[in-house]
């Protein structure tokens, strides 16, 4: 891989890595955080500058890593001129913002979080611009929405920050989902998600009948992001963010992502009437509305926010015109706006920081108190207004010139554009003038919360840099920005460069006249409105009926309420209705093959039933029904009957050629029964006054449940009968497994070979689950608090103790199991331990060829421990045996993983197995397979998990009796 590709990876990776690192720096490390974040931005800027020559003449740097090539999903990084220009903006302004933020953030703010999010956002933004795959763009796009949510809501103690953040996320996030859908449609049209293919498929895309769908969906994404009418409402709300965030997100990045996407897809999608007819009106309305509303804001940042909306409208309008020179103007204005708006936001932040308020009415006469800030802000505001010799003037002239041209023949909208443009220009002059005049001039403000003065030089430096760029570009456009702009334009237009001139003076033409009109009109408008503007009204918003914001909020509230109500309707706060739903849907699924797949019951197809098995199931069925009947009041009886049904299942497995299953089932039956027996102790006593039985409602519910249960039973019985009697497929997977079990897996027990070899990966997953569940059980039990009335020893136990005390000598510790308790069985159980352990080993070793294996052996070994606990009690066992089940679980998992990973040493895929037969002195020929080690891991883990679960539960009784014995019962009751 060439150095260029590597540097692209570094470009995209460094901010994310930095984000993680920044999160772990100490909370007070403002300096190191800022230096660190700044260094990353600087590295990225350096990479961009270094890559500049490669993309200058329409060149493209590409890095590809296949991910799911079959679906057209590859990780592609693609840097062309346009992306390069954005990388420069993002990292350059990012660098200045980090410097600025160092001095803006107060020592009380948790800065690690701030810089971590900022770097994450930078990474996401870079990801959007250098992605070479449509889906990948959407991924990073959504990431920018998430990070902007976190940044806007940074001061989450403030209500307005939370509301603003949520509104921004909902709007841009929903737009992102539309964009995703749109990208999928676009990918379908082109037949590829690769950007290089898409960009050169403009004709195919425009001719496709799916074009409108793709366009509308993609525009929903781009327009929400760029805060275009009618989705502009989130942007003013986002002003609750810390000012460095506003300066970054709303000048060079977040909102620019939307117009970047329009510019990106411009060669592929702009050549269609619909593009103009959708985008042009939206752009024009946003441009005019934003500019007009900006004039009536009282909040300094609010003014800048609406001005941003307006300028984005301008860019959108330019991109809508489907003319290459307009596209040049759009790209140029994107850059200019980023530079002057970032500096203005920073200046607004300085004013807020030093004067303590952003309310334009309260500010005034600051030019004397903070002369440097005033000078810088004035230049930047002049650029915003489009005053000659500033960068804003150049792109605005280009814009005016474009609106005069005819783009769509006979369109009323097209001929209206020059007037819209001039009017918007007029407003922008007026609000820029107001910003300067009412903040820096006029009577000196007297009631400011702080005494304003110029800030430290480091806070002014970023503003100064940006303002300097404004001036240099305005004065010497050709040498300063010419090459940069050309690179971006060539990148956007796929290598083409239309004719345009960056000269300041074009002679007296229509555009200049429009500028002059706007300038003079703006001044007049401001002077006329000045006194009224300082009057007593809050910042203007959209007139009531058009304000989508209110509607969205109302819809949100309504949705929330409907959600709350649906909880009642659908019974979401009760378990039973939910289970009822699930069961009903399952029954419908059972009916499906019979109704629509013409499955049928063929009575003749079955073999004659075996009388013995029939008898087994007479008992098994009776047990199951009995358990269902008794589970409410006679728990022990129900448990015993469940065991009976389980045994019937076990016999069935043995009968029907599944010895492994029968072994496993009988062992699981044992441990499950013990488990539930241990649990019974903590359950409440029978409640006589449960009214349910008598209640008419309850009766109805029981009847309905009975019907559902019968339907389910009949359905599943019918389904299994239909499958069992259907002809089997002789060429199914079973045949392959049977053929190769011995030659490939080295075992004759095919079930075991499947578990440890063919599907070893599944088994690995399953034992992992087992381990996790066991640990969860253990963790839950550590914080277990029983109900007060179950803490005392149960009646039976106290009764037994009393009886024992009468008959024998009383023993020292009454909680130790009496030596006379279960004397003979206890002795046998103790003696059985080595025998069962040996049995477990036997089952384990023969598992590859005969019924047995890790699962069965593990359960057997666990039963050996279990018997010891039963015979001697927890304390007796633990004085003699140290069992560390958690180590067994971890060790088993590591062993299984290690066996799998060992295959890598021989360059084989994970979990490949090796086997041969070895002669052992006494035992004879045994199979030596790596699968055996894997199976040993399974064995160890199963033993550990089973023992851990049971012992943890068994300990509770001992633990709580001990605690009550120490008089902690009172404490326990107080606890509740």
């Amino acid at each position, binding site marked *: 891989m060439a150095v260029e590709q590597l540097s692209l990876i570094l470009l995209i990776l460094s901010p994310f890595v930095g984000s993680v690192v920044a999160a772990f720096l100490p909370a007070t490390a403002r300096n190191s955080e800022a230096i660190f974040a700044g260094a990353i931005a600087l590295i990225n800027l350096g990479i961009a500058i270094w890559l500049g020559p490669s993309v200058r003449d329409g060149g493209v740097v590409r890095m590809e890593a296949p991910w799911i090539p079959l679906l057209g999903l590859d990780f592609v990084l693609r840097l062309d001129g346009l992306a390069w220009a954005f990388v420069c903006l993002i990292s350059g302004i990012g660098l200045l913002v980090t410097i600025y933020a160092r001095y803006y953030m107060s020592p009380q703010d948790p800065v690690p979080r701030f810089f971590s999010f900022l770097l994450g956002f930078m990474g996401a933004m870079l990801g959007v611009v250098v992605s070479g795959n449509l889906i990948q763009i959407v991924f990073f796009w959504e990431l920018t929405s998430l990070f902007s949510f976190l940044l806007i809501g940074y001061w989450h103690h403030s209500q307005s920050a939370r509301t603003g953040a949520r509104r921004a996320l909902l709007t841009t996030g929903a737009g992102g989902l539309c964009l995703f859908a749109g990208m999928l449609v676009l990918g379908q049209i082109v037949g590829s998600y690769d950007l290089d293919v898409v960009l050169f498929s403009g004709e195919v895309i425009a001719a496709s009948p799916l074009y409108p769908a793709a366009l509308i969906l993609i525009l929903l994404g781009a327009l929400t992001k760029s805060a275009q009418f009618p989705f502009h409402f989130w942007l003013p709300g986002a002003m609750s963010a810390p000012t460095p965030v506003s300066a970054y997100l709303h000048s060079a990045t977040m909102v620019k992502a939307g117009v970047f996407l329009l510019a990106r897809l411009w060669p592929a999608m702009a050549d269609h009437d619909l593009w103009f007819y959708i985008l042009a009106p939206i752009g024009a309305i946003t441009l005019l509305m934003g500019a007009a509303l900006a004039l009536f804001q009282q909040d300094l940042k609010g003014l800048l926010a609406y001005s941003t909306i307006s300028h984005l409208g301008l860019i959108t309008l330019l991109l809508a015109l489907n003319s290459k020179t307009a596209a040049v103007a759009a790209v140029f204005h994107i850059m200019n706006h980023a530079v002057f708006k970032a500096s203005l936001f920073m200046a607004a932040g300085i004013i807020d920081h030093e004067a303590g308020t952003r309310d334009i009415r309260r500010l005034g006469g600051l030019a004397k108190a903070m002369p440097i800030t005033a000078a810088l802000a004035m230049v930047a505001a002049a650029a915003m207004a489009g005053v000659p010799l500033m960068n804003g003037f150049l792109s605005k002239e280009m814009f005016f010139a474009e609106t005069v041209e005819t783009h769509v023949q006979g369109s009323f909208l097209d001929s209206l554009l020059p007037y819209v443009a001039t009017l918007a220009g007029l407003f922008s002059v007026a609000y820029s003038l107001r910003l300067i005049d009412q903040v820096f001039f006029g009577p000196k403000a007297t009631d400011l919360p702080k005494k304003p003065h110029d800030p430290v030089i480091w806070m002014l430096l970023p503003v100064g840099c940006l303002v300097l760029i404004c001036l240099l570009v305005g004065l010497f456009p050709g040498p300063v920005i010419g090459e940069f702009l050309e690179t971006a334009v060539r990148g956007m237009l796929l290598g083409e460069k239309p004719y345009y001139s960056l000269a300041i003076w074009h002679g007296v033409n229509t555009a200049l006249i429009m500028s002059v009109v706007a300038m003079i009109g703006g001044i007049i408008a401001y002077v006329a409105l000045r006194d009224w503007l300082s009057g007593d009204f809050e910042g203007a918003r959209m007139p009531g009926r058009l304000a989508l914001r209110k509607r969205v909020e109302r819809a949100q509230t309504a949705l929330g309420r409907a959600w709350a109500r649906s909880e009642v309707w659908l019974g979401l706060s009760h378990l039973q209705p939910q289970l009822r739903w699930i069961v009903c849907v399952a029954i419908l699924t059972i009916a499906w093959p019979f109704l629509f797949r013409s499955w049928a019951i063929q009575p003749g197809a079955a073999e004659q039933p075996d009388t013995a098995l029939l008898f087994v199931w007479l008992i098994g069925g009776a047990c199951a029904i009995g358990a269902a009947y008794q589970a409410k009041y006679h728990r022990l009886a129900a448990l015993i009957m469940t065991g009976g049904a389980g045994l019937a299942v076990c016999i069935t497995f043995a009968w029907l050629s599944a010895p492994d299953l029968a072994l496993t089932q009988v062992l699981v039956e044992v441990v499950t029964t013990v488990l539930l027996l241990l649990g019974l102790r903590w359950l409440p006593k029978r409640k006589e006054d449960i009214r349910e039985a008598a209640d008419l409602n309850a009766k109805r519910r029981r009847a309905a449940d009975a019907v559902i249960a019968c339907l389910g039973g009949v359905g599943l019985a019918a389904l299994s009968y239909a499958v069992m009697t259907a002809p089997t497929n002789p060429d199914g997977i079973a045949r392959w497994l049977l053929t190769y079990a011995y030659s490939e897996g080295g075992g*004759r027990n095919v079930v075991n070979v499947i578990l440890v070899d063919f599907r070893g990966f599944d088994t690995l997953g399953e034992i992992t689950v087992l381990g996790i*569940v066991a640990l969860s059980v253990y963790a839950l039990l550590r914080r277990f608090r029983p109900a007060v009335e179950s803490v005392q020893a149960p009646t039976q136990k106290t009764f037994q103790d009393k009886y024992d005390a009468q008959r024998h000598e009383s023993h020292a510790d009454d909680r130790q199991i009496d030596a006379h308790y279960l004397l003979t069985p206890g002795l046998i159980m103790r003696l059985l331990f080595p025998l069962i352990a040996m049995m477990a080993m036997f089952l384990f070793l023969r598992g590859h060829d005969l019924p047995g294996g890790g699962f069965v052996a593990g359960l057997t070994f666990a039963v050996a421990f279990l018997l010891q606990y039963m015979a001697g009690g927890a304390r007796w066992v633990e004085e003699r045996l140290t069992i560390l089940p958690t180590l067994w679980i971890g060790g088993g998992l590591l062993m299984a993983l290690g066996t799998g990973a060992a295959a890598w040493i021989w360059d084989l895929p994970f979990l490949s197995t090796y086997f041969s037969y070895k002669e052992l002195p006494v035992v004879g020929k045994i199979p030596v397979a790596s699968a055996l080690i894997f199976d040993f891991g399974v064995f160890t883990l199963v033993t550990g998990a089973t023992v851990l679960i049971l012992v943890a539960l068994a300990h509770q009784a001992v633990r709580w009796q001990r605690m009550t014995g120490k008089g902690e019962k009172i404490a326990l009751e107080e606890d509740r």
Partner: protein
Amino acid sequence: MEIVIAIAIGILTASGIWLILRPRSFQVIIGLSLLSYAINLFIFSMGGIKVGSPPLLDPSQTDLTIYADPVPQALVLTAIVIGFATTALFLVVLLASRGLTGGDHVDGREDR
């Protein structure tokens, strides 16, 4: 033979469904046990049923069609063990809920 297994599955399923729709948590745990028997048997029966021919390869036997299908068996084997683990998890959750709420209703509070 098939009819016995089918009816067995049916009875286990019906009892299990009835129990999981009950309000007492112990009923639900017993119901889940019964239901898992039913489902294990059901999955097991998917391979067709054969008597006396476990999938333990006999070197002298060349006809592979006589063996029972090992795939559902392998599936069910791990399902049985995992079933035990989930029963344990559910038991502990119900015990915790019993301790916290004082009752054993599945919703943590009595109806109405």
